[in-house]
């Protein structure tokens, strides 16, 4: 049992580090996206600011700060200001229950590499992400512009529709591991089959669930090919048409933070979390799990960007039909089959 003081101090330090890392990761995911999409389209992407354009996120951040902050007339002011705050708050909060590695001991305090380990971690993330839609919906409504309103309506309809498939795809994993705690779900995936295939959930028969999750997660985070809420060619910029300066940057940050949360969740639930080969001296062994975890998240984000650079956008009726008529029955079938197999085994 740790004392209250050391618990409070450790929590504050962990929260500060997690926020710093998350915000840096958000900035460099934007850089990565511009670079990778640039190379896919036979361009260079950012090159001017720093080596390989590495300081570009800093320059962008400064630019956002110094841009004029315009509030258009006839907006519903209270909600117009609250909407980006809601979006970015919920997007950043969900990092609090995500574990990134094993337990470590720093200065005599043994602590998990996670802000807090709760036994309903997965449900908390689902709850927080389901609240995040208010930021987008209210931004669209309060801007008093037809493009924003259509973007907000599309976003809320899309997120409600795909949340069902997303939630159902996770239940297969929950049946296998028998816990809502993200740490226990990862622990259930340790070891290998026949000595060489890792016991990740994706190899335990949850491969369909993984692809359902992948597609639903793309829709949840409003990314191509499901980025109808901000389709430039028809809606200018969708729900954030009327936003400028830091308010726009907040929506931008929220979108990328959500992408990172989704990538972390995919690594934890389907790809074995931080499990990987451990070797070398003790300090290396405590660092390596974090490295394996970050590599998986990076891989998932790369797939995100890759798909953005390759696929065109769906039509809205196609999006809805895909979600309800294809993804949802597939998720239910996966759930039934997983349940049957687990019941027959026990």
């Amino acid at each position: 049992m740790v004392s209250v003081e050391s618990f409070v101090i450790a929590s504050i330090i962990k929260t500060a580090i997690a926020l710093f890392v998350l915000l840096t990761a958000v900035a460099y995911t934007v850089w990565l996206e511009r670079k990778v999409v640039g190379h896919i389209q036979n361009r260079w992407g950012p090159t001017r600011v720093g080596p390989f354009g590495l300081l570009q996120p800093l320059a962008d951040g400064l630019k956002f700060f110094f841009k004029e902050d315009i509030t258009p007339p006839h907006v519903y002011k209270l909600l117009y200001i609250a909407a980006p705050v809601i979006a970015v708050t919920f997007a950043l909060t969900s990092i609090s229950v995500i574990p990134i590695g094993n337990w470590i001991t720093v200065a005599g305090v043994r602590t998990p590499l996670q802000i807090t380990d709760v036994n309903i971690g997965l449900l908390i993330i689902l709850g927080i992400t389901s609240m995040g839609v208010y930021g987008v919906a209210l931004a669209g409504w309060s801007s008093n512009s037809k493009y924003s309103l259509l973007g907000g309506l599309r976003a809320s309809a899309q997120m409600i529709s795909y949340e069902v498939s997303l939630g159902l795809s996770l239940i297969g994993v929950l049946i296998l591991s028998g816990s809502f705690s993200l740490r226990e779900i990862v622990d259930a995936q340790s070891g290998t089959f026949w000595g060489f295939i890792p016991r990740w959930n994706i190899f335990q028969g949850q491969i369909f669930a993984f692809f359902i999750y992948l597609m639903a997660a793309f829709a949840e985070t409003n990314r191509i090919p499901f980025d109808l809420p901000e389709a430039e060619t028809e809606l200018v910029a969708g729900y954030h048409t009327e936003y400028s300066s830091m308010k726009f940057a907040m929506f931008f940050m929220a979108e990328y933070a959500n992408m990172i949360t989704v990538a972390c969740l995919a690594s934890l639930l389907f790809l074995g979390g931080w499990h990987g080969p451990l070797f070398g001296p003790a300090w290396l062994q405590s660092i390596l799990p974090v490295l394996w975890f970050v590599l998986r998240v990076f891989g998932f984000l790369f797939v995100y960007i890759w798909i953005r650079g390759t696929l065109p956008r769906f039509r809205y009726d196609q999006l809805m039909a895909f979600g309800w008529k294809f993804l949802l029955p597939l998720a239910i079938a996966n759930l039934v089959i997983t349940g049957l197999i687990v019941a027959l085994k026990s």
Partner: protein
Amino acid sequence: MLHLVLFLIFGAVCVAGAVNLLVQRHPINSALSLIVVMGSLAVEYLLLGAEFVAAVQVIIYAGAIMVLFVFVIMLLNAGEEELTSGSRVALLLGIPGILVSSVLVAWVLLAHSGTEAVPAGALPGPPKIIGWLLFHDFLLPFEVTSVLILIAIMGAVVLASPPESVQQSKKEG
């Protein structure tokens, strides 16, 4: 001690949200107040030790049902309501009625033994126990509820689909 303080604070937030819901004239403000009520109720559940119920409260009520409310308000573009002068009967009967019924409820609660406040965290509600109860002790009500919901879904589909004459004309045209 901290539990009690937090419980009282969020109880006050919950009641304030409920009052604000009635006072506000713009439907979207009322909907947002209802979200505050749902959220603070979830915190109350959490403080009582029912973490699963708290999470479900946020996911379903605050996250899904209220999104639909906001969605409908956005879609209809509902504006501010006009304030009527109110009916005199409501004032004359309503306020004494509220007083009498709240006194009655308080009296019944205080008179009966065995209705003391439940200490915080005394009734743990981890997901495993709730699942066990739902699928063993309350299996029949659970299944009957699911059939009821299925009927409601089918009813909604029937109501939402266009009448046969429209479908016929669509096929022909």
